[in-house]
Structures are given as C-alpha cells and as structure tokens.
C-alpha cells in the first residue's frame, strides 16, 4: 500500500462498496473427507492421522458419504441445484498439505445457484458450494509467529482432510453490516441443517471477502481484491470497510486498483498485499483420477430435504405473518418489529411467540416481551411453559397487570416457573382499577400545577413526565396506557 495515500473512513460520499464472500465451513462429520480418521478440533497434534490423510505413498482416498449428505442439505437449504459433481486436484506446494495438492471440486461443484435472504428481506445470490479437503495447520516457532524470522515450523495434520464446504456468494453485498448479516444468516442455516457447529473462533467458519468499489450509479464492477484472514464478524466488517476505503483512496489519487490477494492484519487494522494476479499460483487443476464422480440420487436428495428444518427466513416470515394477522398493514420488516423478529429467531425463541399467540396472546405484545425480556435469558426462555407465558400476555392485555408488573412476573416465570396469576397474587401485583388511576392523576396534577397547565394547554412532550410521576406514586401498579388515557380524557374535558 502506498504510504502517500491517506485512507479515508468508510463510508465515502459518492462511492459504493461491492462485496462477495467465500465462506469455508468445516462440515461436522464424524470422520474426515477421504479417510476414517476422527474429525475433531483440539486433539493432541498428529493423533487423528492415517496413511490416507498423511498422503503416504500408495494410499488412496475414499469419499465420506456423510459429507455429501451434509453438502446436499446445505444445497437444499440455499435453494441450489444439487447435482453430479467431480473432484479435481489443485496442485501447489505447501508443507501443511501432505500430498502437495488439494482435492477440491472445481468446475463441477455439488451445489450450483441459490440464494439467501437477510433478515431485512434482501436476497443475496449464491454462485456455488463445493466440497474440498482442509489442509493441516502450520505453527511458526520463534520470531513473531509469522514465517519470516521463524526458527522452524511445526505442522499438525489433524485438520488435514477435514471436509470443507466452500460457499461462494454473488457480489451482492453493499455494506459491512450486510456482509456480517450474510455470514450470521449463513451460519444460522449451517447450524440449523446440522452441517456445521458454526464456531468461528475454532476456525469452523472461515471467510474471505472479494471487495471492490465504484462510483454510486456505475453499473460496472470495479477491480476486486480478495481479503483473507477474517476470523470474526468484527474482523470481516472492519476489513471490508477498510479495503473499500483503501481502494477509493487509490482511485482518488489517480491510481488503479490492482487485482490481488490481500491479508487482513487485525492488530494494525489494515490489509496488506500477499500476491498479485501475475504472481498467482498456476494450480494446474485436473480431474482427480483416484475418485469417481459423485452423483446425488433421488433418495439422497429426499433425505436431504427431510433433514432441512424450517430455516430462519421462513421462521421470520411466519412471525411477520402473525404480526399482520387481523390487521391490513404490511408487516414492517425494517424498524422495531423487524429487529425484534430477527432477534427472536436468532435466539431460537420464535416457537415461544407463536405458541403464545396460538393461545390467545396479542402478537405484538408476545413478540415484544420475548424480544426485549425473555431473549436476555435464552436458555431459561427456551424452557418457559408456553401456556404460562400466554396467560401472562393475556393478563397484561386485559389490563390485569401493568407492563412493569408483567415484566416482574415474567422474571419470576423465567427463574422459577409457576402460574402467572398465582405469582401476581402472591406478590400483590394487580393493575389499579380505573378510579384509582384517576386518583393518582389528580394528586400528581395538584403537586405539579405548572406541568399540568402546560399539558392542558396542549404541550405533548410533558406527558412523559406526568406518566412517570403517576407510575412512581403508584409504585408501578398503574398501567402506562391507562394513565395516558386518563390524561387525554382530562385534556379533552378542559
């Protein structure tokens, strides 16, 4: 990177970021892709190895059927065409690759096409997903952990031959938030179908980003750079923005962006060039002669379809459907309800909301209580008795409990369980009768004549103060909505 160019902070006015992601996920098979060794993270180095995954002379690969099943499930979940595929050899020398070639699907991947829907409803296209074997892991000893300056290197082949599925998106992402949302959504899908444990910090999910920039309104894509070493959603977001900003800086300085592979340095917050297009390896791909083509048959596809549960997008759609039921409004995907829906599905609590609605809870109220309160304790919330929660929602909607009281009862339900009516009774929680609310309002009006006068004169923003006073005086027993109704009534009479 040229030191003369000052990199601006993203976003830069008038410029658009374009990104596509390559997500490598380790499939959670019991054994490796081409041998019977355990597929496990964190074992003693070089204990999960055999002649095949060590690439010993004369050994031959045998494809793991479970990996094909999991890849097919992901394909079904992404709406891809799951088809006949072929393995190739990708040839290059690296000590953590025992055969000095990687067995990977090349021009005939197992999954082609498809898409993924982000929580805000935006669809991101999927180009392909293909199977390949992972490499071993090299640790450079001495120096600062990089290869330069190291005294020697150690290789652990436990990871060599672990099945990977590389999922490549279209360049449909336009912001760092979208890139993070895409990975989070993809991760949720992979976990939902049982293909991956989704643990990014253990390297089960690794992301490379192809980033380019263009002037807003341009139809053509700019030259892209591939950014590697993105080990967390945070790194991904930072790297994508920084890389976009770097490219804009280069272009604004009159330069051109070189197509190259760049490495994200988390500690320095910048990308550095690894190798240019000219220096790119010639991988000399050719069909792997030790394996035969993989053709998923009808039975496999049927099993894959059966194994794919309701996915996050469909679950969100179901909640939006509940929200709009009975109303003629389009469910708002952006804004508060959209965020609540996404949060509830992400914490796997949509079943609780749906169950409560089935049992007579008001959808918006059930959603709000789960998203805002229950989701804070997701484990307890998943154990919550649906009928008890629905009962609580009904009590609150009927005005038997104030919002504050309902939250208190929900806290008890989460911690101890029980019957909401009994919990409320035992703690003396009951919403005030209408007359009592009026009593409190009168008392507050008397204590704060100036604010009361401004309210009656039509000043809207003083309502919050008055409601808050009433809530405090009533010890939380007054319901906010009921108080507001009394205030409105008083003003209309004035």
């Amino acid at each position: 990177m040229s030191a003369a160019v000052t990199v601006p902070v993203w976003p830069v006015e008038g410029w658009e970021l374009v990104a596509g992601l390559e997500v490598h996920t380790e499939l959670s098979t019991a054994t490796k892709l081409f041998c019977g060794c355990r597929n496990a993270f964190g074992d003693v180095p070089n204990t999960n190895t055999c002649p095949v995954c060590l690439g010993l002379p004369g050994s031959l690969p045998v494809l793991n059927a479970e990996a094909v099943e999991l890849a097919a499930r992901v394909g079904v979940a992404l709406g891809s065409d799951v088809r006949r595929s072929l393995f190739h050899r990708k040839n290059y020398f690296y000590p953590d690759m025992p055969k000095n070639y990687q067995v990977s699907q090349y021009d005939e991947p197992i999954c082609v096409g498809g898409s993924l829907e982000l929580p805000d409803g935006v669809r991101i296209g999927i180009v392909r997903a293909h199977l390949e074997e992972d490499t071993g892991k090299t640790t450079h000893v001495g120096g600062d952990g990089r290869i330069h300056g190291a005294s020697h290197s150690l290789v652990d082949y436990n990871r060599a031959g672990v099945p990977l599925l590389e999922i490549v998106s279209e360049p449909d992402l336009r912001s760092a938030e979208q890139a993070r949302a895409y990975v989070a959504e993809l991760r949720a899908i992979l976990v939902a179908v049982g293909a991956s444990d989704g643990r990014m910090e253990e390297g089960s999910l690794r992301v490379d980003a192809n980033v380019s920039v263009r002037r807003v309104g341009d139809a053509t894509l700019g030259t892209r750079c591939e950014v590697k070493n993105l080990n967390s959603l945070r790194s991904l977001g930072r790297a994508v923005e920084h890389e976009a900003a770097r490219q804009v800086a280069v272009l604004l300085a009159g330069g051109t962006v070189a197509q190259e592979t760049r490495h994200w340095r988390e500690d320095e917050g910048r990308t550095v060039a690894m190798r240019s297009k000219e220096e790119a390896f010639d991988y000399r791909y050719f069909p792997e002669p030790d394996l035969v083509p993989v053709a998923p048959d009808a039975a496999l596809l049927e099993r894959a379809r059966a194994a794919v549960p309701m996915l996050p997008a469909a679950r969100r759609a179901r909640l939006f459907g509940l929200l709009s039921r009975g109303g003629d409004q389009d469910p708002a995907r952006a804004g508060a309800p959209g965020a609540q829906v996404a949060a509830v599905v992400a914490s796997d609590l949509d079943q609780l909301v749906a169950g409560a609605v089935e049992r007579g809870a008001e959808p918006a109220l059930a959603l709000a209580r789960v998203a805002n309160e229950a989701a804070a304790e997701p484990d307890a919330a998943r154990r919550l008795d649906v009928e008890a929660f629905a009962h609580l929602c009904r009590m609150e909607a009927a005005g038997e409990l104030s919002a504050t009281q309902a939250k208190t009862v929900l806290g008890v339900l989460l911690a101890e369980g029980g019957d909401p009516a009994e919990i409320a009774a035992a703690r003396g929680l009951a919403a005030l009768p209408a007359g009592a609310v009026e009593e409190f309002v009168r008392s507050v009006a008397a204590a704060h004549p100036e604010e009361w006068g401004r309210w009656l004169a039509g000043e809207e923003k003083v309502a919050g103060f008055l409601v808050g006073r009433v809530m405090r005086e009533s010890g939380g027993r007054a319901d906010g909505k009921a108080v507001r109704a009394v205030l409105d009534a008083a003003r209309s009479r004035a």
Partner: protein
Amino acid sequence: MADERAGTSGAVGPGGTDGGTGAAGLHAGAVGIAQAVRRGELRAQDVLEEHLAVVEAREPALHCFLALDVERARASAAALDEAVARGEAVGALAGVPVVLKDNLCVPGLPATCGSRILEGWVPPYEATVAARLRKAGALLVGKTNLDEFAMGSSTEHSAFGATANPHDPERVPGGSSGGSAAAVAAGMAPIGLGSDTGGSIRQPAALCGVVGVKPTYGLVSRYGLIAFASSLDQIGPLTATVADAALALEVIAGADPADSTCLDRPAPVLGPVLGRGVEGLRVGVVGDLVEGADREVAAAVAAAADRLAGAGAKVDEVAIPACRYGLPAYYLLAPAEASSNLARYDGVRYGLRVEGEDVAAMNAATRAAGFGREVRRRIMLGTFALSAGYYDAYYGQAQRVRTLMIQAFADAYQRFDVLLGATTPGVAFHQGEKLADPLSMYLSDVFTVPSNLTGQPALSVPFGTGESGLPVGVQVLAPALGEEVLFQVGSSLEAMAPRGGADGAAGQGTGQEAGGAAGQGTGGR
C-alpha cells in the same frame, strides 16, 4: 475348481529331472505347488528352500531384488506346513513363493520405487494385493527391481542398479517390472506381481519369455500401489504359465472399498476357460499393433494367427488407426498425473531430505537430489502439459484421443471377440542401447499403451524365439472385463507356441506346462 485344475495339470511330473520330491516344486508352477502342499505331498518349507537356492545361485548375476524377506517367508512356510499337518484348510496359493515389484507396500519392508527419494521409508500398511496373496498362503520372497517410479522400459532407470535378462545377461529384462519378470523367468518364484501403466508388465514378460497380464482397469485394487499415473496403473501377474497367471489373478482381483476406482464385482473365475480352445472365436489381427515391429516379432504374430485359424478360430485382419495416437496421448496423460502424484516427495515428512534456506529451497534440493533424470523429465513434461494456457492443447487433447481410442476399440469388438498383435517392437535389447535416446525407449511401449488408455485387459504370452534365440511375446487384447476370453485365447496360444529355443536359458518349460494345462482344459470341457 482350483483343485481340479491343479490335479490335471500334471506339471509335477517334469520335476523328475532334478530328482526327488523336493525339486518337484521348481517345475510344478503355482498351480501344482499349491495343490501338492494342500494335499501334504510337498512341504511349503521345501518349496521355499528350492526357490531360495535358485535366488542364491542366480541373483548375483541378475539383480532381480531390492529386498529379500527370507526369514518371514521361512516362518510363514513353517506355519503353513503345521497348519496342513493339523488338517487345517489352507489357501489357493499355499506354499507358492511370490515376488512383488518394489512399488507395492508391505509393512516392515522398505518400499523404494527404485528411487533415492524414498530411501529409508518403510510403509506402515499393506497393499490390498499383498494382503490377498498372504491370506491365500503365498510366501513373499522379496521385493523386485524396477525403473524408478515405474517410468521406463528396461529397469535401467532404477537408482539401485539394472536387472539383467535371464536369457542373456547382456540384455535388459524390459521394464518397468523387469525385476519380477526376470525373477519368474529365472525360476526364483512362480508368481511375480508387477504394475502396468503403459506396458510395464507385458513388455518385460515378452522380453523375458513369461506370461504377463494387465487386467481390466479397476479389476484389481490399487490400494498400496505407489502411484505413477493413477488412471492408467493396474497391478497384474507375471508367471511362467497362463494357468498360474489365472490363479494369481483370481486371488488378487475383486472389489476393495479402499480403492474408489476398483470395480464392485467379484474376481473372475478363469479355471474353466483354460484350454477350452478357440473354435469359432473371432480373432482380429490388428495391423496397427504389428506395424513397425522387427521381422522376427511380426513373424511370431503371423504364426500365432495361423495356428489360431488352424485351431478353428475365425481370423481376420482389422485396422485400428487410432492406435497411432496412443503413444503421444500416453506421454501427455501419464506424466501429467505423475507430476501431481510425485509432488508429495518433498523432504517434509519421509524419505530423503536435503536441507535448504527455506521450505521451497529444501523441496527443490530434495527433489533434485532424489529423483533420477527420467523421473525429472516426466515431471517437467507433465507440469507443462497441465499448465494454464496449455492444458487444453495437451492434457485436454490427450483425453479426447483417449475417448476416441475407446470408441475405436469398441467398434472393433463389435466384430471380434479378441484382438491379436505384437507385445513389443523387438526382442530384448542390450543394456545401455536405448538409455541415451528416450524416444526410442518410449517406442518400446507403442503396442501396449492402447490397452492402458482404454482400460481394457491384455495379456502377453511367449510365442517361441526369434532369430536371435531370444523370447518373443504376442499380445492378446480383449474388451473390458473380458478376462475369460482373454485367458481362453492365451492358454491356447501357450499350447500351440513353438517349443524349444530359449527354454533352457530361462530354466522353465513353459511349452510343456502349457500343454498340460491345455490338456486339462480340453478334458474338462
């Protein structure tokens, strides 16, 4: 079935020349030995010692072996004799000494591939074929010499010295399975296993006067065969007789879950077809598989065709012009796969390591020091053929030629049950004669590569001797999985081959034994 075959082979008889039951094993062939050992008529230990005596006598001049495994073989023979004495069932190859080309993995024995780069490496696992031989009661005598990584046609490209032809030590035994071919021809073991990527079993078989079989691709598991070119490599037997080759193939063939390219089907049953004759069979003599051969070789093919016709076969000529593209296609595909298969020899994990400044320098220094000239030449050829911008013109084009050849042979098999041609362009050449000229060495494979490219089976059977007194082989080719008809014709040719000539030099009476086998088959029909 094997019992019936062995019982009527009558091969034990000729052993009388050496006197005593002990020497009978030398001339009984695998079929006769296994049958006699099973019946308690021969002790496996005696059979082994006789063959070891031949090894001791002739190995110094021939250099067939890269490793001997005498102690384990003796222990196995003793255990086998005890099992027979206890009345236990023993396998189809009980007491039969075998040798394996040194690109097959056996635990406890180095596997060198004839290369410095694998020096010191001892495989921790067993090749499927080695396990099957062992379980059938065969006694592994040792590992045999080969051209480095099976790349060559003379066994001169071994890093550990050349092997001599038992018929004339001044000449090469062929290659790359020259060590196994010479050992079998010299009577050191009735069965040797080799690997055939472009003719590496059939060509040395022809030059040493023994039978060599390249089975249908996928019939024999490649698990434990150190790869040269994976889509072409196939393991097969080299034996003194067609009946022994059939028995060996029955033992080593058949499905293996460890090799994805191994066909999911049982081993063929070949005993019943031996000596069945050729009456009514349609035999196509492929002009393209004789053209350019020396006169003595062409004469042998013509004589073989005549005798088959005389025995009732319908013999006709057939042209398969696509054969001429075989060699160029082969010399793109095989090196391409080899360049990838041999990438793992980098000094990091096993074998030779020559230190360097960094990993890349260590890789380069190790490979430069560890690989011989021929291997380096092919790695460079193959790397080039797969390179961006050249892939389609070279590798891609060669694959299209391969498809074309498969189609051309399929067309020929519409009209013929088997095809006949020469195995090699000439008889055994002198040591050093072709070393300086790789292209003329490559031409040794011109008649054998088509079967590797098409995946179809082929067999070389000795058919007399040429003007030089050296053995000449003729080649029988059959459609994929046509091993039955292949052996049927092979055993007939063996029976009708001219007698005498080099038999004495080889120490084997192939003609006599073939006659016995043929007689058995006829009787059983």
